Structures are given as C-alpha cells and as structure tokens.
C-alpha cells in the first residue's frame, strides 16, 4: 500500500443555509479543497451523506455532486454509514489512493438538515437505529443515548452534571472556530438549567444539527517533498450490533476499541503518542465512552478527564479542539469529514487560541448510529 498525503482541505460554516442546496454546499467545500491543492486532475469522488433521500428526496449524490464540480464522467459514489458516513467516505478515498486504483481522490461529507420540519429530521436520524426492534417502540435517537447514559451514571456513580465539563470545553473551543455552528460559552449552571430532551440527556448534552460540508483531497505522499506534509498513517473501521439491546456490553463501544486498535497498529502508535483527539461527542456520554474505548481512560473514568481539565487544548489529551459535535455542530453525514479537516488544521498549526502546542499526531473517531459503525483515523505531520 502507498503512503497517502492530504493535498488540500475545505469546509463551509455549519449553519441554517437556506440559500444553498446540497450540491452547492458540497461544491463549496470541494472547490476550496481543490484550490488549496492547486487544482489537480481528479480520478474519483466519494460523498459521505446520511439523510439526502429522506430529507432532500435526493439519492445518487455521487453523480449529482460530480456533475456540479465539473468531474463529468469520473467515478463518483455515495458512502452511507449513518453519522459515520463522513469518515467512511474518507476511508474509501484513502483506500482508492493507497491501493493505486486512483492517483487523486476527493472525499466530501455533506448534509442538508434544515429544509424539513424538525420532527421529520428526528425521524430520519432515528433510522440509524433498528427499525423493527428499536424505532417501532417509539425510542428516538436521543432516547437510545439517554438509556446508555442512565445506565452509565448508575453503574459508575457519576452525576449527570459531571458530564457538563465535556460540553463546556467544546463550547469554549468553538468560540475560536469561524466555521462552528454555535459561538456561545456555557457554564455548569447553564447546563443544569437547560431542559431535558430525553432524561437524563439535557439540551446542553446534545449536539445541534445543521447544514454543512467538508472536503479533503488525497494523493500519494511521494507527490510532495518530505517535511511539512500531512500523512494519513492509520485507518480502522469496525461494526457492532445495530441495536443497543443486542450489545454484549451496552456501556462499552466495542467498535471504537477495535477500529482504534487497528489504526494504532497501522500507524505504529499508542494512546500516549496521540497529541489530540477529535472524537464524536454527539452526546456528552459518547465523549466519555470514546475516550475509554480508545485507551485514554479506564472504564467508567472518562468524565474524570473532563473534570480535571485534561481535555482542554493545553491538557494531556485535548478533544473537540474546534468545538466538537457539541458546538462546531453535527451535520450528520458531514461530521466525520469536519473531524479530519480539523485534525489537518491542528497539524498545520492553524488553530489560534485552541492550537495544541507542537501537535504532530492527531486522531479522529467518527461514530455511526449508537455505536454500530465506528472509524478511527490517525494523521501525522512529517
């Protein structure tokens, strides 16, 4: 397999983009990435997206976006893995270039969520769960995460407000990210006052939806001179049962553990080598479970890292350095690509007040469903 480097990145602000269609959003991110990459010829396009058939009544995003960006007749396909669609599209592009099937591949994650009534979007998101045995019982996607959180608090003896530290960190970091959905610092008191969405999950445990797109151009590493390149050194993907109730242990993200192990092995790295970690805090409980499964905390001890400040940009294992899902926003199928773009920004030293000092090795982890599909990537500056 060939070594693969990032040639360019692009992203849009996450917002209610009523004036832009799904193809315009995706195009915006891709054009920015191609401009950074000095307009190379593209061999293929991989589009990460979850909801376009349900929310936009539009399938076939591969040719839709290829046509829009001027990649006429080129290979283009959509990759769907619920909220992990973005990282799944990235991994497809990575495999295409690493294997030699393509010289230059583009991965773009895009989601358009604000055209429909929120109840229909809630329904669309819930299709990531088991339709026969979860959704038909009336549980929402938030509800599934709430049941995981409830049991977690009970088993490990935490208060729900102990998890507020994750949201506070994310909101603080997003203040310095111009692409973030929310620019609003919050306190523990704000958290405790915010309303219940599905007990014990409060509004300030949950990430906001939005419209957005993020893109990356990948090429063989040897096209660039060594030094100052951003290389993709580890990539892992794994699955678990689609339904929470069928997991051997609903409080452990088996697919996160497995995909992280795969990425660590490929990169020749260990958790101690990771300078920062863009994880999937769709709900604050997921931040705790992700830290535990990826080897940064013992089981049940994820919240301690947040409470003791270890997750801040200057801490031992900074997370959500650009705001995370919680405050940067969670345009579901695009989220995994935002994480990759943000890792690249950190490795290039472009993150201003939330820059992680001497960032050399970064990791991103994207979760689909309530833990059914999980991808972990490690990127490094050489």
């Amino acid at each position: 397999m060939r070594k693969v480097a990032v040639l360019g990145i692009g992203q849009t602000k996450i917002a209610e983009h009523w004036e832009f269609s799904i193809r315009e959003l995706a195009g915006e991110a891709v054009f920015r990435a191609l401009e950074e990459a000095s307009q190379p010829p593209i061999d293929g396009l991989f589009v990460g997206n979850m909801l376009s058939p349900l929310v936009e009544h539009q399938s076939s995003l591969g040719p839709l976006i290829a046509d829009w960006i001027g990649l006429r007749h080129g290979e283009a396909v959509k990759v769907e893995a619920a909220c992990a669609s973005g990282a799944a599209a990235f991994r497809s592009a990575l495999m295409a270039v690493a294997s030699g099937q393509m010289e230059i591949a583009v991965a773009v994650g895009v989601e358009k969520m604000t055209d429909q009534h929120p109840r229909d979007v809630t329904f669309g998101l819930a299709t990531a769960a088991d339709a026969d045995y979860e959704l038909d019982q009336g549980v929402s996607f938030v509800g599934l995460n709430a049941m995981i959180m409830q049991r977690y608090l009970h088993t490990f003896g935490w208060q729900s407000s102990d998890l507020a530290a994750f949201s506070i960190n994310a909101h603080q970091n997003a203040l310095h990210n111009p692409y973030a959905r929310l620019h609003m610092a919050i306190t523990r008191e704000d958290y405790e006052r915010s309303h219940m969405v599905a007990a014990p999950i409060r509004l300030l445990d949950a990430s906001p939806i939005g419209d957005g797109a993020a893109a990356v151009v990948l090429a063989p590493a040897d096209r660039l001179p060594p030094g100052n390149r951003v290389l993709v050194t580890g990539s892992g993907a794994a699955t678990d049962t689609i339904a929470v109730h069928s997991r051997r242990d609903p409080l452990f993200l088996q697919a996160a553990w497995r995909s992280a192990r795969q990425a660590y092995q490929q990169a020749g790295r260990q958790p101690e080598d990771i300078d920062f970690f863009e994880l999937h805090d769709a709900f604050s409980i997921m931040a705790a479970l992700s830290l535990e499964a990826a080897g940064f905390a013992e089981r049940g001890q994820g919240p301690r890292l947040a409470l003791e400040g270890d997750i801040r940009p200057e801490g031992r294992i900074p997370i959500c350095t650009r705001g995370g899902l919680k405050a940067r926003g969670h345009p579901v199928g695009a989220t995994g690509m935002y994480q990759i773009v943000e890792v690249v920004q950190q490795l290039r030293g472009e993150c201003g007040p939330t820059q992680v000092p001497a960032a050399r090795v970064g990791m991103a982890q994207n979760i689909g469903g309530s833990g059914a599909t999980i991808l972990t990537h490690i990127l490094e500056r050489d």
Partner: protein
Amino acid sequence: MEVPRHWRLKKQRYALVGEVCPHCEAKIFPPRDVCPECGGEAKTTFQFSGRGEVYSFTTIYNPPRGFEENVPYTVALVKLDEGPIVTAQLTDVDAEQVEIGMPVEMVTRRLRQDGDERGVIIYGYKFRPRSLAS
C-alpha cells in the same frame, strides 16, 4: 407504513418468540439465526416468559413522528429473565417511579397508529411493573 413488515413481526410483537441455540442453549431475542454466543446456527424457536427487570430507561419528550399522542412516555431496556435485553415502552407506571432493577412483565398494548396513512394500528409488547411475589 408498510403492512407486511408489521405482519411479519407478529410472533415477536405479540408473544416474544425468539430462538434458543441448539448448540450452547443461549436464549436469543430478537431472533437472528446465528447464535451471538457461539456462532452456530440457531433457528429453534423459543417463547420467552415475558418477565424481566429494568436495565435502563429514559423519558421521551421529543418523539419521532407517529408517537406524539403519548408524550411524555418512558422507554426502557428490559433485561429478560432468560438473558437478552429488549427495547420497549413501560406502561401503567409514572415516570418518577421507574428505577433500574425494577421487576417488570410483558403486556400487549397499542404501540401506535399511522394516522391518515393507511389506518394501521400497531400492537406489540410493552412492560409494566410486577410485584416480586407474582
């Protein structure tokens, strides 16, 4: 709303019919034909007792489309006496009284109505509290 999809699930919805693995005797619900414990083929049907306890729960205030009429309602992960966990609504109980470990039993209730779509009313399992003596 798809009628055959719900018709197909009637044994599970009305009677909690799952499977038992002929190799390792693991009880399986929902049915999945490959035993999650030993990996062997498991197609022998098995009817669960419908008794279990609350493993975890939540109260839903923002429901998915189709479940608006019962808001707020409580959904639980119920650990069945035979081992598997099932996702189901709780009924005949106030949300404030629910706690982890509470003994429950299966009852058949209306899950939802599809409104103006095709007039289908979907019934299925929910769980209600049971006294430890019963």
